[in-house]
Protein backbone atom coordinates (compact mmCIF):
# COMPACT_ATOMS: atom_id res chain seq x y z
CA UNK A 1 0.00 0.00 0.00
CA UNK A 2 2.77 2.39 0.96
CA UNK A 3 4.54 1.80 -2.34
CA UNK A 4 1.37 2.32 -4.33
CA UNK A 5 0.82 5.64 -2.49
CA UNK A 6 4.38 6.69 -3.32
CA UNK A 7 3.84 5.59 -6.91
CA UNK A 8 0.68 7.65 -7.07
CA UNK A 9 2.64 10.75 -5.94
CA UNK A 10 5.27 9.98 -8.59
CA UNK A 11 2.58 10.00 -11.25
CA UNK A 12 1.22 13.40 -10.13
CA UNK A 13 3.85 16.04 -10.96
CA UNK A 14 1.45 18.93 -10.24
CA UNK A 15 0.74 17.58 -6.76
CA UNK A 16 4.46 17.14 -6.09
CA UNK A 17 5.09 20.70 -7.24
CA UNK A 18 2.33 22.05 -4.95
CA UNK A 19 3.67 20.02 -1.99
CA UNK A 20 7.16 21.48 -2.53
CA UNK A 21 5.73 24.97 -2.95
CA UNK A 22 3.53 24.42 0.12
CA UNK A 23 6.47 23.52 2.36
CA UNK A 24 8.47 26.51 1.09
CA UNK A 25 5.56 28.92 1.52
CA UNK A 26 4.72 27.54 4.98
CA UNK A 27 8.26 28.45 6.06
CA UNK A 28 7.68 31.90 4.57
CA UNK A 29 4.38 32.11 6.45
CA UNK A 30 5.94 31.79 9.90
CA UNK A 31 7.62 35.26 10.07
CA UNK A 32 4.32 37.15 9.42
CA UNK A 33 2.71 35.21 12.30
CA UNK A 34 5.58 35.99 14.68
CA UNK A 35 5.60 39.62 13.55
CA UNK A 36 1.85 39.88 14.07
CA UNK A 37 2.07 38.43 17.59
CA UNK A 38 4.82 40.91 18.43
CA UNK A 39 2.96 43.86 16.88
CA UNK A 40 -0.32 43.02 18.61
CA UNK A 41 1.54 42.70 21.92
CA UNK A 42 2.88 46.22 21.47
CA UNK A 43 -0.49 47.58 20.34
CA UNK A 44 -2.36 46.01 23.25
CA UNK A 45 0.12 47.62 25.67
CA UNK A 46 -0.15 51.02 23.98
CA UNK A 47 -3.36 52.36 25.69
CA UNK A 48 -1.98 51.55 29.17
CA UNK A 49 1.27 53.31 28.28
CA UNK A 50 -0.55 56.41 27.01
CA UNK A 51 -2.72 56.51 30.12
CA UNK A 52 0.33 56.21 32.39
CA UNK A 53 2.10 58.97 30.44
CA UNK A 54 -0.96 61.20 30.75
CA UNK A 55 -1.13 60.58 34.51
CA UNK A 56 2.57 61.27 34.93
CA UNK A 57 2.30 64.51 32.96
CA UNK A 58 -0.63 65.48 35.18
CA UNK A 59 1.57 64.87 38.21
CA UNK A 60 4.05 67.39 36.84
CA UNK A 61 6.66 65.15 35.23
CA UNK A 62 8.19 65.95 31.84
CA UNK A 63 7.41 63.68 28.88
CA UNK A 64 10.90 62.17 28.88
CA UNK A 65 10.75 61.44 32.61
CA UNK A 66 7.28 59.96 32.26
CA UNK A 67 8.54 57.73 29.47
CA UNK A 68 11.48 56.60 31.59
CA UNK A 69 9.12 55.62 34.41
CA UNK A 70 6.92 53.74 31.91
CA UNK A 71 9.94 51.96 30.40
CA UNK A 72 10.86 50.70 33.89
CA UNK A 73 7.33 49.59 34.63
CA UNK A 74 6.54 47.84 31.34
CA UNK A 75 8.27 44.47 31.03
CA UNK A 76 6.89 43.65 27.56
CA UNK A 77 8.21 44.43 24.07
CA UNK A 78 6.90 47.97 24.33
CA UNK A 79 8.91 48.62 27.51
CA UNK A 80 12.05 47.18 25.90
CA UNK A 81 11.60 49.37 22.84
CA UNK A 82 10.95 52.40 25.00
CA UNK A 83 14.16 51.78 26.97
CA UNK A 84 16.15 51.58 23.73
CA UNK A 85 14.51 54.79 22.52
CA UNK A 86 15.38 56.68 25.68
CA UNK A 87 18.95 55.40 25.58
CA UNK A 88 19.21 56.66 22.01
CA UNK A 89 17.71 60.02 22.90
CA UNK A 90 20.90 60.81 24.89
CA UNK A 91 22.84 60.70 21.64
CA UNK A 92 20.21 62.34 19.43
CA UNK A 93 17.20 64.60 19.91
CA UNK A 94 14.09 63.39 21.74
CA UNK A 95 12.02 63.97 18.60
CA UNK A 96 14.35 61.77 16.53
CA UNK A 97 14.17 59.10 19.24
CA UNK A 98 10.35 59.16 19.10
CA UNK A 99 10.50 58.72 15.32
CA UNK A 100 12.94 55.84 15.71
CA UNK A 101 10.66 54.25 18.34
CA UNK A 102 7.73 54.46 15.89
CA UNK A 103 9.79 52.88 13.10
CA UNK A 104 11.13 50.08 15.28
CA UNK A 105 7.66 49.17 16.54
CA UNK A 106 6.57 48.49 12.92
CA UNK A 107 3.03 49.24 14.07
CA UNK A 108 0.80 51.78 12.33
CA UNK A 109 -0.92 52.50 15.67
CA UNK A 110 2.35 53.40 17.40
CA UNK A 111 3.46 55.40 14.36
CA UNK A 112 0.26 57.44 14.40
CA UNK A 113 0.55 58.04 18.16
CA UNK A 114 4.18 59.14 17.92
CA UNK A 115 3.42 61.39 14.95
CA UNK A 116 0.59 63.01 16.88
CA UNK A 117 2.75 63.37 19.99
CA UNK A 118 5.53 65.04 17.98
CA UNK A 119 2.99 67.38 16.40
CA UNK A 120 1.48 68.18 19.81
CA UNK A 121 4.95 68.90 21.27
CA UNK A 122 5.79 71.06 18.24
CA UNK A 123 2.54 73.03 18.55
CA UNK A 124 2.68 73.28 22.35
CA UNK A 125 -0.69 71.54 22.62
CA UNK A 126 -2.09 70.22 25.96
CA UNK A 127 -0.30 66.85 25.88
CA UNK A 128 -1.95 65.40 28.98
CA UNK A 129 -5.47 65.61 27.52
CA UNK A 130 -4.31 64.43 24.12
CA UNK A 131 -2.62 61.36 25.60
CA UNK A 132 -5.70 60.54 27.69
CA UNK A 133 -7.94 60.85 24.60
CA UNK A 134 -5.61 58.71 22.53
CA UNK A 135 -5.45 56.10 25.27
CA UNK A 136 -9.24 55.84 25.25
CA UNK A 137 -9.39 55.74 21.44
CA UNK A 138 -6.79 53.02 21.07
CA UNK A 139 -8.23 50.97 23.90
CA UNK A 140 -11.56 50.88 22.07
CA UNK A 141 -9.86 50.10 18.77
CA UNK A 142 -7.85 47.25 20.29
CA UNK A 143 -10.94 45.89 22.01
CA UNK A 144 -12.70 45.80 18.65
CA UNK A 145 -9.73 44.17 16.94
CA UNK A 146 -9.42 41.55 19.69
CA UNK A 147 -13.14 40.88 19.61
CA UNK A 148 -13.09 40.40 15.85
CA UNK A 149 -10.18 38.02 16.21
CA UNK A 150 -11.74 35.92 18.97
CA UNK A 151 -15.21 35.80 17.43
CA UNK A 152 -14.15 34.95 13.90
CA UNK A 153 -11.17 32.69 14.57
CA UNK A 154 -13.32 29.60 15.23
CA UNK A 155 -15.36 30.17 12.09
CA UNK A 156 -12.29 30.67 9.95
CA UNK A 157 -10.72 27.43 11.21
CA UNK A 158 -14.03 25.65 10.59
CA UNK A 159 -14.06 26.76 6.94
CA UNK A 160 -10.48 25.58 6.35
CA UNK A 161 -10.95 22.22 8.08
CA UNK A 162 -14.19 21.40 6.28
CA UNK A 163 -13.14 22.52 2.81
CA UNK A 164 -9.51 21.38 2.88
CA UNK A 165 -9.83 18.19 4.96
CA UNK A 166 -13.46 17.13 5.38
CA UNK A 167 -14.63 17.60 1.81
CA UNK A 168 -11.81 15.72 -0.01
CA UNK A 169 -12.04 12.91 2.53
CA UNK A 170 -15.81 12.63 2.04
CA UNK A 171 -15.59 12.58 -1.77
CA UNK A 172 -12.66 10.15 -1.66
CA UNK A 173 -14.77 7.90 0.58
CA UNK A 174 -17.74 8.03 -1.83
CA UNK A 175 -15.59 7.40 -4.91
CA UNK A 176 -13.45 4.72 -3.24
CA UNK A 177 -16.50 2.91 -1.94
CA UNK A 178 -18.70 3.02 -5.04
CA UNK A 179 -16.10 3.03 -7.78
CA UNK A 180 -13.05 1.17 -6.47
CA UNK A 181 -9.98 1.05 -8.70
CA UNK A 182 -9.62 -2.68 -8.10
CA UNK A 183 -12.91 -3.33 -9.88
CA UNK A 184 -11.66 -1.65 -13.02
CA UNK A 185 -13.36 1.74 -12.81
CA UNK A 186 -11.68 4.27 -15.11
CA UNK A 187 -11.48 7.52 -13.14
CA UNK A 188 -8.41 9.36 -14.45
CA UNK A 189 -10.22 12.41 -15.82
CA UNK A 190 -12.67 12.36 -12.88
CA UNK A 191 -9.83 12.32 -10.34
CA UNK A 192 -7.89 15.02 -12.13
CA UNK A 193 -10.99 17.31 -12.21
CA UNK A 194 -11.72 16.78 -8.53
CA UNK A 195 -8.07 17.18 -7.52
CA UNK A 196 -7.93 20.57 -9.22
CA UNK A 197 -11.26 21.50 -7.64
CA UNK A 198 -10.02 20.67 -4.13
CA UNK A 199 -6.88 22.70 -4.69
CA UNK A 200 -8.89 25.71 -5.89
CA UNK A 201 -11.52 25.29 -3.13
CA UNK A 202 -8.75 25.28 -0.51
CA UNK A 203 -7.37 28.48 -2.00
CA UNK A 204 -10.82 30.10 -1.77
CA UNK A 205 -11.28 28.82 1.82
CA UNK A 206 -7.89 30.20 2.93
CA UNK A 207 -8.57 33.55 1.26
CA UNK A 208 -12.02 33.87 2.84
CA UNK A 209 -10.88 32.88 6.31
CA UNK A 210 -7.85 35.19 6.06
CA UNK A 211 -10.05 38.08 4.93
CA UNK A 212 -12.49 37.43 7.78
CA UNK A 213 -9.65 37.96 10.24
CA UNK A 214 -8.34 40.95 8.30
CA UNK A 215 -5.03 39.37 7.26
CA UNK A 216 -5.51 37.79 3.85
CA UNK A 217 -1.98 38.42 2.60
CA UNK A 218 -0.30 36.58 5.46
CA UNK A 219 -2.92 33.80 5.27
CA UNK A 220 -2.13 33.23 1.59
CA UNK A 221 1.35 32.00 2.55
CA UNK A 222 -0.40 28.89 3.88
CA UNK A 223 -2.58 28.37 0.81
CA UNK A 224 -0.21 26.07 -1.16
CA UNK A 225 0.25 23.82 1.89
CA UNK A 226 -3.50 23.46 2.44
CA UNK A 227 -3.99 22.93 -1.30
CA UNK A 228 -1.41 20.13 -1.17
CA UNK A 229 -3.03 18.64 1.95
CA UNK A 230 -6.47 18.71 0.35
CA UNK A 231 -5.31 17.20 -2.96
CA UNK A 232 -3.23 14.54 -1.19
CA UNK A 233 -6.11 13.53 1.10
CA UNK A 234 -8.29 12.97 -1.95
CA UNK A 235 -5.71 10.95 -3.89
CA UNK A 236 -4.60 8.84 -0.93
CA UNK A 237 -8.21 8.38 0.22
CA UNK A 238 -9.36 7.09 -3.17
CA UNK A 239 -6.35 4.76 -3.31
CA UNK A 240 -6.71 3.40 0.23
CA UNK A 241 -10.51 3.08 0.32
CA UNK A 242 -10.70 1.87 -3.28
CA UNK A 243 -8.17 -0.88 -2.57
Amino acid at each position, binding site marked *: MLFSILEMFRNEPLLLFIITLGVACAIGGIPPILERVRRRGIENDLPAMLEALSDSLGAGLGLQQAMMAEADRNTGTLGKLLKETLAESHASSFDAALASFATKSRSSQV*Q*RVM*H*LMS*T*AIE*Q*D*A*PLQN*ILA*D*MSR*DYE*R*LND*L*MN*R*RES*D*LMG*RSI*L*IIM*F*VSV*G*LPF*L*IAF*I*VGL*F*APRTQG*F*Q*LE*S*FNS*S*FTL*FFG*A*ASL*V*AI*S*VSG*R*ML*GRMRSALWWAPLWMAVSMSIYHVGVLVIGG
Partner: protein
Amino acid sequence: MRSLDESREILYVIRTLDVLMGSGVGLEAAIHSISQGGYGIISKDFEGLMENINKGRPLEKELRSLLKKAETDGYKRVINTMLNNVTQNTDIIETLRKQGERMEETRTESVKEYIEELGGVPETLLSIGMIGPIILSILGIAPQLMEDAEELFGPMDQGMIMSIVNVGLFLTLLGMAMIGLKAHTKDPGL
Protein backbone atom coordinates in the same frame (compact mmCIF):
# COMPACT_ATOMS: atom_id res chain seq x y z
CA MET B 1 -11.22 49.96 -2.13
CA ARG B 2 -11.28 53.75 -1.81
CA SER B 3 -14.23 53.73 0.57
CA LEU B 4 -12.51 51.08 2.72
CA ASP B 5 -9.35 53.22 2.90
CA GLU B 6 -11.37 56.33 3.71
CA SER B 7 -13.29 54.66 6.53
CA ARG B 8 -10.06 53.19 7.94
CA GLU B 9 -8.24 56.56 8.07
CA ILE B 10 -10.89 59.18 8.70
CA LEU B 11 -11.06 58.82 12.49
CA TYR B 12 -7.29 59.34 12.82
CA VAL B 13 -7.48 62.35 10.51
CA ILE B 14 -10.18 63.86 12.74
CA ARG B 15 -8.05 63.29 15.86
CA THR B 16 -5.02 64.87 14.19
CA LEU B 17 -7.04 67.85 12.98
CA ASP B 18 -8.42 68.21 16.51
CA VAL B 19 -4.92 68.24 18.05
CA LEU B 20 -3.49 70.58 15.43
CA MET B 21 -6.33 73.06 15.31
CA GLY B 22 -6.92 72.85 19.07
CA SER B 23 -3.36 74.06 19.58
CA GLY B 24 -3.83 77.03 17.28
CA VAL B 25 -2.76 75.75 13.86
CA GLY B 26 -4.81 77.06 10.94
CA LEU B 27 -6.90 74.84 8.67
CA GLU B 28 -4.55 75.12 5.70
CA ALA B 29 -1.50 74.23 7.80
CA ALA B 30 -3.38 71.29 9.34
CA ILE B 31 -4.28 70.02 5.87
CA HIS B 32 -0.65 70.45 4.85
CA SER B 33 0.48 68.42 7.89
CA ILE B 34 -1.84 65.54 6.97
CA SER B 35 -0.79 65.73 3.32
CA GLN B 36 2.77 64.86 4.44
CA GLY B 37 1.66 61.24 4.76
CA GLY B 38 0.60 58.57 7.22
CA TYR B 39 -3.12 58.69 6.48
CA GLY B 40 -3.34 56.64 3.28
CA ILE B 41 -5.76 57.83 0.64
CA ILE B 42 -6.69 60.96 2.64
CA SER B 43 -3.04 62.09 2.70
CA LYS B 44 -2.96 61.65 -1.07
CA ASP B 45 -6.17 63.66 -1.50
CA PHE B 46 -4.84 66.44 0.71
CA GLU B 47 -1.53 66.40 -1.14
CA GLY B 48 -3.35 67.03 -4.42
CA LEU B 49 -5.42 69.74 -2.75
CA MET B 50 -2.28 71.48 -1.44
CA GLU B 51 -0.64 71.31 -4.88
CA ASN B 52 -3.64 73.02 -6.46
CA ILE B 53 -3.77 75.63 -3.68
CA ASN B 54 -0.11 76.39 -4.25
CA LYS B 55 -0.93 76.92 -7.93
CA GLY B 56 -3.35 79.63 -6.85
CA ARG B 57 -6.73 77.88 -6.76
CA PRO B 58 -9.01 78.87 -3.84
CA LEU B 59 -9.32 76.45 -0.88
CA GLU B 60 -13.12 76.56 -1.05
CA LYS B 61 -13.17 75.37 -4.66
CA GLU B 62 -10.69 72.60 -3.90
CA LEU B 63 -12.71 71.40 -0.92
CA ARG B 64 -15.83 71.32 -3.09
CA SER B 65 -14.12 69.14 -5.70
CA LEU B 66 -12.79 66.86 -2.93
CA LEU B 67 -16.33 66.57 -1.59
CA LYS B 68 -17.41 65.14 -4.96
CA LYS B 69 -14.53 62.65 -4.88
CA ALA B 70 -15.21 61.38 -1.32
CA GLU B 71 -17.13 58.12 -1.06
CA THR B 72 -17.85 57.58 2.63
CA ASP B 73 -20.27 59.62 4.70
CA GLY B 74 -17.69 60.29 7.41
CA TYR B 75 -15.13 61.74 4.99
CA LYS B 76 -17.81 63.81 3.25
CA ARG B 77 -18.92 65.21 6.61
CA VAL B 78 -15.37 66.20 7.56
CA ILE B 79 -14.83 68.00 4.24
CA ASN B 80 -18.19 69.67 4.63
CA THR B 81 -17.18 70.87 8.11
CA MET B 82 -13.96 72.29 6.65
CA LEU B 83 -15.96 73.97 3.91
CA ASN B 84 -18.33 75.52 6.43
CA ASN B 85 -15.35 76.76 8.42
CA VAL B 86 -13.90 78.42 5.32
CA THR B 87 -17.15 79.99 4.15
CA GLN B 88 -18.93 80.75 7.44
CA ASN B 89 -16.13 80.68 10.05
CA THR B 90 -17.84 77.97 12.12
CA ASP B 91 -16.32 76.30 15.22
CA ILE B 92 -14.52 73.47 13.44
CA ILE B 93 -12.86 71.95 16.54
CA GLU B 94 -16.10 71.35 18.41
CA THR B 95 -17.78 69.91 15.29
CA LEU B 96 -14.81 67.61 14.60
CA ARG B 97 -14.87 66.31 18.18
CA LYS B 98 -18.57 65.49 17.90
CA GLN B 99 -18.01 63.85 14.53
CA GLY B 100 -15.13 61.82 15.96
CA GLU B 101 -17.30 60.52 18.80
CA ARG B 102 -20.13 59.66 16.44
CA MET B 103 -17.79 57.95 14.02
CA GLU B 104 -16.31 55.87 16.79
CA GLU B 105 -19.79 54.70 17.77
CA THR B 106 -20.54 53.90 14.13
CA ARG B 107 -17.29 51.94 13.84
CA THR B 108 -18.12 49.89 16.93
CA GLU B 109 -21.57 49.16 15.54
CA SER B 110 -20.21 48.23 12.11
CA VAL B 111 -17.70 45.78 13.65
CA LYS B 112 -20.52 44.13 15.63
CA GLU B 113 -22.62 43.95 12.46
CA TYR B 114 -19.68 42.51 10.52
CA ILE B 115 -19.19 39.75 13.09
CA GLU B 116 -22.91 38.96 13.07
CA GLU B 117 -23.17 39.00 9.27
CA LEU B 118 -20.18 36.72 8.88
CA GLY B 119 -21.79 34.28 11.30
CA GLY B 120 -23.70 32.71 8.42
CA VAL B 121 -20.81 32.66 5.94
CA PRO B 122 -19.22 29.34 7.07
CA GLU B 123 -22.58 27.54 6.95
CA THR B 124 -23.48 28.90 3.50
CA LEU B 125 -19.99 28.29 2.18
CA LEU B 126 -19.97 24.74 3.47
CA SER B 127 -23.47 24.03 2.19
CA ILE B 128 -22.54 24.98 -1.36
CA GLY B 129 -18.98 23.70 -1.07
CA MET B 130 -20.06 20.26 0.14
CA ILE B 131 -23.43 19.53 -1.43
CA GLY B 132 -22.27 20.54 -4.94
CA PRO B 133 -19.20 18.24 -5.08
CA ILE B 134 -21.10 15.32 -3.47
CA ILE B 135 -23.82 15.45 -6.14
CA LEU B 136 -21.28 15.99 -8.92
CA SER B 137 -19.07 13.13 -7.75
CA ILE B 138 -22.02 10.73 -7.86
CA LEU B 139 -22.96 12.09 -11.29
CA GLY B 140 -19.37 11.63 -12.47
CA ILE B 141 -19.21 7.94 -11.61
CA ALA B 142 -22.82 7.23 -12.61
CA PRO B 143 -22.08 6.17 -16.24
CA GLN B 144 -19.71 3.45 -15.03
CA LEU B 145 -21.86 2.46 -12.05
CA MET B 146 -24.95 2.06 -14.20
CA GLU B 147 -23.35 0.46 -17.25
CA ASP B 148 -25.75 -2.48 -17.04
CA ALA B 149 -28.79 -0.26 -16.69
CA GLU B 150 -28.57 1.26 -20.20
CA GLU B 151 -31.89 -0.27 -21.16
CA LEU B 152 -33.54 1.53 -18.27
CA PHE B 153 -31.85 4.96 -18.46
CA GLY B 154 -30.50 4.96 -22.01
CA PRO B 155 -26.80 5.33 -22.94
CA MET B 156 -24.73 7.80 -20.88
CA ASP B 157 -21.61 9.29 -22.45
CA GLN B 158 -18.76 9.52 -19.90
CA GLY B 159 -17.19 12.48 -21.77
CA MET B 160 -20.40 14.48 -21.75
CA ILE B 161 -21.04 13.70 -18.09
CA MET B 162 -17.49 14.82 -17.22
CA SER B 163 -18.08 18.10 -19.06
CA ILE B 164 -21.20 18.65 -16.94
CA VAL B 165 -19.21 17.75 -13.78
CA ASN B 166 -16.43 20.19 -14.71
CA VAL B 167 -18.88 23.03 -15.33
CA GLY B 168 -20.63 22.16 -12.05
CA LEU B 169 -17.36 22.20 -10.12
CA PHE B 170 -16.44 25.55 -11.66
CA LEU B 171 -19.84 27.00 -10.72
CA THR B 172 -19.48 25.61 -7.17
CA LEU B 173 -16.10 27.30 -6.89
CA LEU B 174 -17.55 30.54 -8.22
CA GLY B 175 -20.41 30.33 -5.71
CA MET B 176 -17.96 29.78 -2.86
CA ALA B 177 -15.89 32.77 -3.97
CA MET B 178 -19.00 34.96 -4.25
CA ILE B 179 -20.10 34.04 -0.73
CA GLY B 180 -16.59 34.66 0.54
CA LEU B 181 -16.58 38.07 -1.14
CA LYS B 182 -18.96 39.21 1.60
CA ALA B 183 -16.04 39.04 4.04
CA HIS B 184 -14.28 41.66 1.90
CA THR B 185 -17.09 44.00 0.92
CA LYS B 186 -18.55 44.29 4.43
CA ASP B 187 -15.18 44.87 6.10
CA PRO B 188 -15.50 47.67 8.69
CA GLY B 189 -11.90 48.79 8.01
CA LEU B 190 -10.14 48.39 11.35
